[in-house]
C-alpha cells in the first residue's frame, strides 16, 4: 500500500514539474492600446505567447515551431508556444469561459476566418479592434482592400489581422489526364469520359463545400451572392441551375455519386492511390508541398477555371480574455513582416500566399518575394490573383450545404 502511495506521489511531482513551466501570468490592468509600440515590445519581453490553431499540416506546424518561434525569441525574447486545437474546440472553450466571465484565459492568438470569426465576433469572444496598433499592418497592408476589410462577407473592423491568402484549385495528374477542364461543362465531359474517377468531398467539408460554391459561381456567376441575405428559398432559386448540374454529374462520379468521401484528406489519399483522377485544395501551393513529401505523383498540377476560383484570406485574432496582449500584438506584427511573409510563401516552408500589398513594398522587398522559388505544379501568383473571386457571405454557406445535402446524396432518384 505504501508503495502505491509513494508511486502516486512521485508521478504527481514529476508531471507537475512538466506542466509548471508553461504557466506564465502577467496581469496588467492598463489598456494596451493606449501604450506606444516601444512600451508594448518592452513589456512583451521575457513572456510566453500561446498560439492556438489547426495542427493538421506538418509543414505549417514546423514553420511555426521553427521559424516563428526561433525568430520571436531572438528578436523580442518572446517564447512562442503553439497549441494544436481545432477552431470549434477553441470557440467552445471561449464560449464556456465567457459564460462564467473568466477574465484571464489561456489563449493569446487564434488562427481563424469565415463563419468562425463571425460567430466569435457576434458572441463577443474577441478582444476588439487592434490592427491599427501594428506598425507592419500600417506599413504593408492595404487596409481598404476588400480582402482585408471583409472576411467571407463579414466586416472585419480591425478585429483580426490577415495571416495568409488561400485560393481554391483542383489538382490533376498530367500523366493521366490530357484534357484539362477549364469550366463546369468540360468537367462534366471529363467525368463522362472517365466514369467513377472523379468525386468531391461531401459538404460540410471545407474543401468540398468550396467546390460546390465554385460550381455555382461558374454557372450562375458570383456577383449576386455577395450581398445576398440568408433566405433559403431565395438561395434555392438562385442556385437551382448549379444543383441541376451536380445531379447531371452525379452518375459519373465515384461510386455513382451515391456516397462521397467525408473529408478532403480522404480524397487526397484516393488521389495518391490512383483511385480518382483529381483532388482539390484550398491552398494553391498544396500540390508542390505534396509532391515534395512524395504523397502526390511528380506530374501533378494545379488547375483553375477560366472564370476564376474562390479565394479567401485567413486571419489571426486575439480573444477577449487573452492573458498576454503585448506579446500577442508583437507576434502578430512579426508575422506581417516581409521576412515572415516571404518565408511562409516559400513552398519549402509552407507555400501560403502573402498578404502584403505589392504596391507598398520597396524594390528590395519586392525582390525578396520574387526570389522565392515556387515548387512544381503550382500556378504563378499573378495568374491566381487575376482569377480570384471573393467568398460568399459566411451565413449563406451552411444553407447551400443544407440544400446540397437534401438534393444530391439522397437515394431513389
Amino acid at each position, binding site marked *: 500500500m505504501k508503495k502505491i502511495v509513494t508511486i502516486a506521489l512521485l508521478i504527481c511531482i514529476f508531471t507537475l514539474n512538466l506542466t509548471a513551466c508553461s504557466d506564465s501570468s502577467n496581469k496588467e490592468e492598463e489598456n494596451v492600446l493606449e501604450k506606444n509600440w516601444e512600451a508594448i515590445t518592452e513589456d512583451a519581453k521575457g513572456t510566453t505567447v500561446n498560439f492556438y490553431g489547426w495542427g493538421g499540416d506538418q509543414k505549417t506546424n514546423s514553420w511555426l515551431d521553427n521559424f516563428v518561434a526561433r525568430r520571436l525569441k531572438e528578436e523580442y525574447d518572446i517564447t512562442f508556444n503553439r497549441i494544436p486545437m481545432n477552431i*470549434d474546440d477553441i*470557440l467552445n472553450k471561449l*464560449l464556456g469561459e*465567457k*459564460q462564467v466571465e473568466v477574465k484571464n484565459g489561456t489563449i493569446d492568438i487564434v488562427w481563424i476566418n*469565415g*463563419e*468562425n470569426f*463571425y*460567430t466569435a465576433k457576434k*458572441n463577443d469572444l474577441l478582444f476588439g479592434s487592434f490592427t491599427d496598433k501594428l506598425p507592419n499592418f500600417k506599413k504593408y497592408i492595404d487596409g481598404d482592400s476588400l480582402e482585408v476589410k471583409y472576411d467571407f462577407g463579414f466586416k472585419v473592423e480591425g478585429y483580426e489581422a490577415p495571416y495568409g491568402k488561400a485560393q481554391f484549385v483542383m489538382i490533376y495528374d498530367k500523366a493521366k489526364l490530357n484534357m484539362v477542364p477549364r469550366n463546369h461543362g468540360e468537367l462534366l465531359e471529363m467525368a463522362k469520359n472517365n466514369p*467513377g474517377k472523379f468525386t468531391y468531398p*461531401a459538404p*460540410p467539408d471545407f474543401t468540398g463545400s468550396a467546390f460546390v460554391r465554385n460550381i455555382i459561381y461558374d454557372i450562375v456567376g458570383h456577383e449576386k451572392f455577395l450581398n445576398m441575405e440568408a433566405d433559403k428559398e431565395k438561395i434555392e432559386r438562385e442556385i437551382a441551375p448549379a444543383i441541376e448540374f451536380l445531379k447531371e454529374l452525379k452518375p459519373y462520379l465515384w*461510386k455513382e455519386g*451515391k*456516397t*462521397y*468521401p*467525408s*473529408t478532403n484528406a*480522404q480524397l487526397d*489519399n*484516393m488521389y495518391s*492511390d*490512383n*483511385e480518382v483522377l483529381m483532388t482539390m485544395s484550398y491552398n494553391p501551393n498544396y500540390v508542390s508541398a505534396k509532391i515534395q513529401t512524395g504523397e502526390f505523383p511528380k506530374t501533378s498540377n494545379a488547375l483553375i477555371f477560366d472564370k476564376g476560383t474562390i479565394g479567401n484570406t485567413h486571419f489571426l485574432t486575439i480573444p477577449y480574455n487573452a492573458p498576454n496582449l503585448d506579446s500577442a500584438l508583437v507576434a502578430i506584427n512579426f508575422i506581417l513582416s516581409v521576412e515572415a511573409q516571404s518565408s511562409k510563401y516559400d513552398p519549402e516552408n509552407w507555400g501560403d500566399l502573402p498578404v502584403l500589398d505589392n504596391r507598398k513594398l520597396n524594390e528590395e522587398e519586392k525582390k525578396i518575394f520574387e526570389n522565392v522559388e515556387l515548387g512544381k505544379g503550382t500556378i504563378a501568383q499573378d495568374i491566381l490573383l487575376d482569377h480570384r473571386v471573393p467568398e460568399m457571405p*459566411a*451565413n449563406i454557406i*451552411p444553407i447551400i450545404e443544407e440544400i446540397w*445535402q437534401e438534393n444530391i*446524396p*439522397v*437515394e431513389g432518384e
Partner: protein
Amino acid sequence: MLKKFKPYVMLAPVMFIILGIFTMGLALGFFQSLGYFPAVGLKEFTLRYYKEVLTDIGFLDSLKFTLYTSFVSSTLALIIGVLLAYSIFQSKSRKGVLYTIYKLPVIVPHSIAALLVFNVLTQSGILARVLFYLGIISEQTQFPSLIFDQNGIGIIISYLWKGIPFIAMTVYTVLSNINDKLTDAALNLGANRRQVFWKILLPLLMPSILSSYIIIFAFSFGAFEIPYLLGPTSPKLLPVKAYIEYINPDLSHRPYSMVINMVLASYSLILVWFYSKTFKLFSKFDEIS
C-alpha cells in the same frame, strides 16, 4: 445498523465523480436540448427542437442505421471474442507473446482504428492490392466498396477490430481466474468439453460477457469518430449527425445537437436495460448450483 450503509459508503467516491462532474454536465446539455442556451441568446424552454428532429424524414433512417451497425458489430464481436478467449485458454499458451499480442487493438484509439481499416479496405487498400496481385481482380473498381458504403461494412469491421480483443481480454481474465479443479472435476465425472463449456464455464462467464457487451454496444451507439471517418454520406449515423450540428459555427444549431444526443442516450439506456434483463433471465435459466 451500520452494515446497511456499508455498500453506499463504498460507492460514494465513484458516485461523487459521476454525479458531481458528469451529471452536472448532462443537466446543461439537457437544458440546451430544450432550447435554453442564454449565452447565445436562446432563453426560452421549448420542445420545438425535439419535434423538429424527431419528425425529420432522415432521422428514422439514421436511427435504424445506427441500431443496425452497433447491434451487428457488438454481437459479432461478442461471439468471436469469446471464441478467441476460449481458443487461447484451450491452447494453454498463456505465456509468451501470444498472450499479450492479441490485446494490441485494445490499446489503439478508435480514430487510428479507422485509419487502419481505411488503409486495408478501400478500393486502393492493401486487400485490393493483394487480390490484384493474385489476379483475382483486374481493376480497382472490381473490388467491392467497403468504405463509405450504405451497408456500414467499414464501420462494423472497425468496431469488430476493436471489440473482439476487448471481449476476449475480459473473458480470458475470468477464464483464467476460474479454478481448474472445477472443470477437471466435471471432466472426471464424464462430462465432455462441450458440456463443460456450456454448463460450467459459460454461466460463470456470463456477468463479464454481459458487461463487456454492454460497454461495446453503448460505445458504438454513441461514438462519432469511426462513422465520421468511414460512414456513408447518407444516411448518416446519429452520433455523426450530432457531431456535425455541434461543430456548426452557427451556435443556434446547438440545441439540435443536444436533442440528438439526448435521444441517443435514452435509446442506449433502454437497450442496455433490456439487455441486462434478458441476460439475467438467460443466466438464471442456465444456473446449475
